[in-house]
């Protein structure tokens, strides 16, 4: 799932400084699951905005709304009425949400209420970690289903580097060494032989380096 974290309240207050009628829209999908932009978080931000502006001596109207997903126009349309009544919209969906809303409501200022970070999973309640590098050319078959691009701080394909110690990465923060994980996994499934081959320089065109990406499926296009 996509994982993010609510922006600091001060940042959002700054963004919507000059406005009277503000709409905060959350999303019931990924960001609700990672507790960044679900209904509760929308309520907290809306409340915080009201308190913030009152402390500055201003009364503002802060409305709240939710979309099931904010990456598709059909879902975004369900909040059309509220959007049209507002002067500005703060979207608490992942980065895709505000952009979808902006395309749908081209004359409305849409601002981000969360910082979208990565594709990852919950390790335990309250802890999420990055798992997928989104590289467009998956090699999990070669690495025991541990992503060398997301989980190695240096995106190495022939890791580990010389800085790994006790299964931890040299960047600190208790970050796991991705290649220790790969090594352990390959050992567990009897595929250590894979590490004997040198993986050649990667073609990064399928990643962001090839330009903004787009997938077109002619077979399913209308």
């Amino acid at each position, binding site marked *: 799932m996509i994982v993010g974290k609510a922006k600091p309240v001060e940042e959002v207050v700054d963004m919507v400084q000059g406005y009277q009628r503000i709409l905060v829209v959350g999303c019931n999908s990924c960001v609700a699951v990672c507790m960044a932009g679900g209904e509760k978080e929308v309520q907290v931000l809306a409340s915080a905005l009201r308190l913030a502006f009152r402390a500055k001596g201003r009364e503002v109207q802060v409305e709240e709304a939710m979309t099931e997903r904010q990456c598709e126009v059909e879902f975004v349309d369900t909040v059309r009425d509220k959007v049209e009544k507002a002067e500005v919209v703060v979207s608490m969906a992942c980065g895709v949400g505000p952009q979808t809303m902006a395309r749908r409501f081209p004359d409305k200022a849409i601002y981000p209420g969360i910082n979208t970070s990565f594709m990852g999973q919950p390790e335990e309640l309250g802890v999420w970690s990055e798992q997928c590098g989104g590289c467009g050319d998956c090699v999990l078959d070669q690495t025991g289903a541990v992503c060398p691009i997301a989980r190695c*701080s*240096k*995106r*190495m394909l*022939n890791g580990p580097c010389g*800085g790994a110690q006790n299964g931890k990465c*040299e960047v600190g923060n208790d970050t796991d060494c991705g290649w*220790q994980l790969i090594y352990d996994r390959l050992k567990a499934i009897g595929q250590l032989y894979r590490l004997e081959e*040198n993986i*050649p320089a990667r073609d990064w065109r399928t990643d962001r380096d090839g330009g903004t990406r787009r997938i077109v499926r002619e077979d399913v296009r209308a």
Partner: protein
Amino acid sequence: MSERSEDKAAEPAQEKVWKSGSRLERLLAKGEFVVCGEMAPPQSADGSVIERKAENFKGFVDAVNLTDNATGIVRMSSIACSALAIEQGLEPIVQMTCRDRNRLALQGDILGAFALGARNVLCLTGDHQSMGNHPQAKNVFELDSIQLVDMVRRMRDEKVFQGGDELKVEPRIFIGAAENPFADPLEFRAPRLGKKVAAGADFIQTQAVYDLERFGKWMDMVRERGLHEKVAIIAGVLPCRSARGLEYQKTSVPGMSVPDELIGRMKAAEKPEDEGVKICVEIISQLREIEGVRGVHIMPVMWERILPAVVEQAGLLPRPEVGDEG
């Protein structure tokens, strides 16, 4: 006499084809125990620093590494310093990391380094920038050290760019890589050396050795695989000047193994600097006894002026002449 024997008599003696012809390569080929040093480039635009630093290395080492934004701290580039070092009569080993450059820049830099007279390169993945003075930077890391070694080897031996185009004049460079016998997972460190050899490494420099037992175990595994015959292993040493400095390496430098006994000696010493040199010299002499160790790489971090003393006390002077080995 038959025509054939006449032809044979007329054949010139076989000339050795050097990969680079560098002093380092020639000495290793002669079977000499080589001595490498390491110079930290200045954290400023003052190139004259190299001239001053050169005094600590000239005549004491066979080649000297110029680091490449090591530990993520910005310094004058390794290639620029290597060119300045050549002016001072030193043979540089250009260090190149994959942290700050993509394959375009790396290849361009190899061509430039060669054109400026450099003949040795050490291919590294590179320290993560989070530990340096520009942690906010985006990193590159689009190649790793093994892919870099492979790329440089192909430029030199196959005369081809990584993208496939032909290279008209190839960089005849002696290719090095690093390996850390003390990092985890331990059991993979010798196989990983094998990968670097397969990629084309001509020489290897290791992380600083304090833990001779662990280093010995690594060398056992390396010899088991016959790697010591395929690549010249140059063991790293780091002369330490204080107990605190040694402790710092033990606790704060990733991938270092420092026996407590050595820290004890430094703490107990009346003159820690002298003890530090003594320890370094002891380690060097023990390394010389290990089969497969072809030289020593002295890294006098923040203490470059001590290098001449270490080399002298280790009995490594004078440095050999490089003749016209054929």
